[in-house]
């Protein structure tokens, strides 16, 4: 079965990103397909490669990136939500005249159409958030 995952909450805020991660991992372990993970609203903060959590804490961003690497996940960050919150990749830096980028390379910035497509293409859309 094809799942799409939507995350509306940032890392270390409450538990949504953790729940989504464990759900995604469990779905993959059962042989399901993850069509896309879409990061929306404050969820875009899950994509910052500049986070440095304490060593004895989980690294939410790296953990997503590793899972994406292992399973070739498509992890999409909403562009409008990203712009508001200062989440920047090379393209956005150029377009908006910013002097730095902070997106972890396994994530990509794109539009809300990617969420709509995921909702249509996947058998189930599971939403995690506040």
């Amino acid at each position, binding site marked *: *079965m094809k*799942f799409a995952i939507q995350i*509306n909450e940032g890392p270390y805020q*409450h*538990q*949504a990103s953790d*729940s989504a991660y*464990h*759900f995604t*991992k*469990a*779905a993959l*372990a*059962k042989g*399901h397909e993850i069509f896309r993970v879409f990061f929306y609203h404050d969820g875009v903060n899950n994509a910052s490669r500049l986070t440095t959590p304490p060593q004895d804490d989980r690294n939410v961003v790296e953990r997503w990136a590793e899972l994406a690497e292992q399973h070739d996940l498509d992890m999409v960050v909403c562009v409008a939500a990203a712009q508001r919150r200062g989440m920047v990749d090379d393209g956005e830096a150029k377009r908006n005249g910013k002097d730095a980028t902070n997106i972890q390379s396994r994530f990509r910035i794109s539009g809300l159409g990617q969420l709509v497509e995921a909702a249509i293409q996947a*058998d*189930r*859309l*599971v*939403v*995690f*958030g*506040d």
Partner: protein
Amino acid sequence: MSKLHTVNKSPFEKSSLDACLQHVLDGASVLLLEDGVYGALRGSAAAESVERALASVKVYVLGEDLKARGFGEDRLINGISVVDYAGFVDLAAEADAVQAWL
């Protein structure tokens, strides 16, 4: 076919559990996760509405989140089933849609 409803906030923090229980159709499933697990505890002020709902819907609680908050399964309202993340995936796959009450 029926829906899986997820509630991730405590009934003592938000009204999402109540809103969910007022809207679920007979035969649906409700999964309590994160702080939502507080809604699964026996003897709380929120327990009555959950007990009433159990007559027509199935209620599940995510075991990991229950344990993380220091509660054993002996604290649960009778009739609530414990699932792990794999069980959550199964519930989502078995339902025809998943509705998150955020």
